[in-house]
């Protein structure tokens, strides 16, 4: 069943017809970060759910989704180069 991961990065490369479906599933659980990248805090049960939902809509032989699981935001460092116009994870809107 795995460990208690609470934060994920999700990258996808999927066929044009399925992009919208994948996007819709991701935005229910995570913040939109870059064109085909989502990220955010997520409870372990929802990691199972998002995986199951994505599995149902993708073409297993063609599409590629990568999920990086982390314990939280404290165990990595990030650097931004350029400008991020919209920070989906901000608490402010």
């Amino acid at each position: 069943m795995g460990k208690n991961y609470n934060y994920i990065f999700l990258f996808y490369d999927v066929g044009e017809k399925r992009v919208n479906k994948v996007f819709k599933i991701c935005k229910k659980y995570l913040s939109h970060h870059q064109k085909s990248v989502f990220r955010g805090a997520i409870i372990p049960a929802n990691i199972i759910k998002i995986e199951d939902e994505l599995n149902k809509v993708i073409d297993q032989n063609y599409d590629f989704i990568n999920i990086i699981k982390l314990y939280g935001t404290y165990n990595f460092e990030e650097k931004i180069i350029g400008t991020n116009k919209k920070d989906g994870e901000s608490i402010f809107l």
Partner: protein
Amino acid sequence: MNNITGTIINYYIHCKRQCYLHYHRINLEDESGLVKIGKALHERHNTEEIEIDNIKLDKIKGEFVTEIKKSDADFNASRFQLLFYLKKLKEKGVIKKGRLTFLEKNKVDKKNHEILLDDSSEKELEDIISEIKILVSNSTPPAIEKNNKCKKCAYYAFCYI
């Protein structure tokens, strides 16, 4: 006996305090991350849940009623829960065998277990039901019995705070 459910039976074997609180609708399962994981896995493996009266059966196929559990942490509690379903079905004139399926096995030797409602287990179940009726009629919940299994319980924070 209508307000007694499979979950109440399971909890009674597992922890009398949890049984009492749940019966009086102090239900805290939704507050637990572990319970949510259990539910998500349950959905992954089981899409044919059937509801009859107050009871939810994971699967009925052929002569078997199957109850799916995430882990075998409390075998006996799961066993009586399933026996309760078998008894409920028997009262409706449907005689079935039971099968317990554990998604993860840690304590017991195999994933699938056949459970039968025979005279002796039916008697045991009836005794448990009368004990539950006495327990829940008390004005206060039974005291906390500190135990290692509490750490994984949805009621942990409630009991230990």
